[in-house]
């Protein structure tokens, strides 16, 4: 296969790899045009890109929800086949949570909703209960278990939707715009929940518009623009003003501020937070 951007090798030890992905929708042309991405364990990947750039399509290809026109997706070295058995297998390893929690929550109460996946896995009742309790705990929504879904706040619904995916015990969790529409407190709670998941060994991939969030949170960044993914360390990608400009994204404020004060951005320990920047300038 010829790659538009030369040869490409997935990162060594990658858990989830998308290679040479072409994808589009009828009447809209190609959204992804030979996109590569690799997700490694223990590394936080944020996908950035403006609306319509193909971020969501990329996540949908990786999760198996969208069948790419060309290219392949593999998890743990096993290439995804889009038949019943292949998808069933893949979905136990990779879970995608969509942006709008209401698309994800369809049961009467929280517990019933989170149990949907484990029940479909054919687990027995005791095991389902264990999975549900664990997922509720990790997302810090245990005390909401018996509440009707539509009485919860938006931030709570987002976390319950993630719990539903987590109850499948995926290796990789793909979150589409998890922070969109959340207030600062809900973002903090969500980030704590994501840390819980990582502590348990789940690899978290996030797509976001929020460049300041990506700068603070991510180890690696993939910018989706013109149908391909530019992936690299957060510092490398998010200091590349030309790339971010082409993707119609802004540059994180610490980068802009430090550069306009004539500072170089430290590649090894980049200043991510206000206190990091203050320490540098103080």
């Amino acid at each position, binding site marked *: 296969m010829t790659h538009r951007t030369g040869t490409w090798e997935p990162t060594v030890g990658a858990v989830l790899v998308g290679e040479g992905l072409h994808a589009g929708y009828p009447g809209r042309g190609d959204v992804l045009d030979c996109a590569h991405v690799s997700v490694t364990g223990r590394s936080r990947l944020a996908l950035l890109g403006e609306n319509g750039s193909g971020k969501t399509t990329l996540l949908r290809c990786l999760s198996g929800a969208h069948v790419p026109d060309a290219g392949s997706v593999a998890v743990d070295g096993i290439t995804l086949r889009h038949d019943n058995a292949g998808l069933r297998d893949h979905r136990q390893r990779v879970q995608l949570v969509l942006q709008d929690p209401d698309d994800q929550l369809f049961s009467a*109460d929280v517990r019933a909703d989170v149990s949907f996946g484990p029940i479909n896995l054919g687990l027995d009742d005791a095991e389902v209960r264990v999975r549900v309790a664990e997922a509720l705990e990790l997302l810090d929504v245990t005390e909401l278990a018996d509440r009707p879904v539509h009485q919860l706040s938006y931030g709570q619904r987002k976390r319950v939707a993630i719990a539903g995916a987590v109850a499948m015990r995926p290796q990789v969790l793909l979150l589409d715009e998890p922070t969109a529409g959340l207030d600062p407190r809900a973002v903090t709670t969500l980030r704590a929940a994501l840390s819980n998941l990582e502590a348990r060994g789940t690899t978290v991939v996030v797509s976001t518009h929020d460049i300041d969030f990506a700068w603070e949170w991510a180890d690696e960044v993939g910018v989706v623009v013109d149908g391909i993914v530019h992936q690299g360390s957060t510092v490398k990608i998010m200091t590349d003003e030309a790339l971010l400009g082409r993707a119609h994204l802004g540059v994180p404020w610490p980068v802009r501020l430090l550069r306009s004060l004539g500072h170089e951005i430290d590649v090894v320990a980049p200043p991510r937070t206000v206190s990091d920047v203050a320490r540098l300038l103080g």
Partner: protein
Amino acid sequence: MHIAEGFLPPLHAAAWTAVAAPFVIHGTRAISRTIKEHPEATLLLGAAGAFTFVLSAIKLPSVTGSSSHPTGTGLGAVIFRPPVMAALGTIVLLFQALLLAHGGLTTLGANVFSMAVVGPWVGYAAFRLLGRAPFSVRIFAAMALANLATYVMTATQLALAFPGQNGFVGAWSVFLGIFAITQVPLAIIEGLVGVLIFKALRSW
């Protein structure tokens, strides 16, 4: 099961349009009265019509492995009563004809009569007659029978139009037979799904 555009002889198409018209006019009047008192009903009926259309545009997983589309008329009849469904069903059938090419303009009357008049009335009657039965049994009966009645009516319309050399009864049994393979399991599934929908709705 929509009768396709132009499938019926012109006289039949015209006759079914004439038969369906009073029901639609009656339903329109019923809606107008409601809306005068509650303008917000317009929005609710718009949502209900959109929901019916969307439900009919997606495939229903079937036990036999084939798949087809639910009619949803029994559900609508229970919620909104049959007269309203006659008018709302006409709108939905017009959309199905023009957006999905299901049914047609010349056969709109015939399709309205089977799907927006006979189906809802049979479903609603079943729902009322089973007044003492458990709620889920009533919903199941309303949905499944509305679906079945619609299909029997369509077969009747086709047999009347094309009696062939066997006469009406012969043609009728042939048309019934041809669609029975897919339609009976679908009616049962629609009934089952209807019960699940109501269970989900009650939590709201």
